[in-house]
């Protein structure tokens, strides 16, 4: 077994994860606020208005990073769920459960900001087109995972059930991504692609990339925070958890 696997194995132990995660949480949160400030200033003040949509296009700076995160978090949960089911790793179970509420928030933000952008642009808040409907299904999947976990009195049984639902629900992610390609939708196609470049001018693009980084950093900080709280809750009878609760956490 190489050093990385040994380190990863040791990290799976709650006391080790507790000690390791504290500086990362603080660092990611601080960086998230810095990048958020820069990104918001760039998006709301520096970027020029769109020639067609006017000022309303500025909603893109929160809508698109949230939409990307809503898909990213679900894929993350499915991977962690698979690891939890195959190797029975406690930390992976905790990650599945801890990631779901923030994923639901990202999805809700995507839908609400999309509606608020749709009204001045399309003339309607909502349309039952493929992209909007599949994103709404994603929100229901997140809520289903949260409800399923809480319906069990025993944590590990609930986490396993949540992992199975995350694995089943991940099929919705490519449907959301390719919905604008497969079907004729009111929602516009991809503006930015990893392979095909960007249709946005650089003066509008850079704040979007900075805010994408900010949402990633914020999510890492929230995930670590929620995992730590859940870990304390599950291990509160253990000495390390009692000591951690007694100190300023």
């Amino acid at each position: 077994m190489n050093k990385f696997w040994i380190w990863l194995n040791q990290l799976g132990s709650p006391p080790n994860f507790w000690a390791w995660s504290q500086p990362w949480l603080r660092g990611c949160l601080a960086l998230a606020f810095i990048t958020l400030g820069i990104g918001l200033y760039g998006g709301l003040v520096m970027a020029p208005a769109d020639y067609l949509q006017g000022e309303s296009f500025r909603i893109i700076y929160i809508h698109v990073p949230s939409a990307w995160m809503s898909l990213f978090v679900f894929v993350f949960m499915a991977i962690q769920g698979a690891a939890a089911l195959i190797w029975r790793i406690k930390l992976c179970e905790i990650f599945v459960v801890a990631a779901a509420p923030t994923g639901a928030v990202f999805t809700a933000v995507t839908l609400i900001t999309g509606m608020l952008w749709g009204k001045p642009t399309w003339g309607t808040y909502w349309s039952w087109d493929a992209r909007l409907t599949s994103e709404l299904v994603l929100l229901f999947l997140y809520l289903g995972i949260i409800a399923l976990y809480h319906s069990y009195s025993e944590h590990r049984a609930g986490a396993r059930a949540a992992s199975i639902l995350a694995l089943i629900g991940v099929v919705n992610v490519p449907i959301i991504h390719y919905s604008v390609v497969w079907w004729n939708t009111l929602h516009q196609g991809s503006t930015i692609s990893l392979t095909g470049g960007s249709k946005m001018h650089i003066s509008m693009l850079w704040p979007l990339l900075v805010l994408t980084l900010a949402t990633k950093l914020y999510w890492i900080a929230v995930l670590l925070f929620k995992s730590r709280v859940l870990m304390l809750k599950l291990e509160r009878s253990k000495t390390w958890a009692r000591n951690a609760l007694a100190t300023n956490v």
Partner: protein
Amino acid sequence: MSGHWPYIIAAYTICFVLFALDWFASVIELKNLKRDSIMRQRRGANRPDAGNPNPGNTKADNMQARNTELGNKQAVRDQSVNDKPMDASQ
């Protein structure tokens, strides 16, 4: 185009409120955990011998005390049956 700003302000406000709620839900959960831990400590529930009816006794001591107590109760019951006056018909 200035008519678009209410939509932009509403979008960003809702977004930050939801993120703040998500964060503070965990902060409240952590505070509740700390409060419970302090209360358990005050009640002594965090001691290594928590739940032990006779602190200082081992498990074997407790079992022996329990058996003695049960034995004594049984003896008292037997005695009360023996002390019962016999029915005249018997």
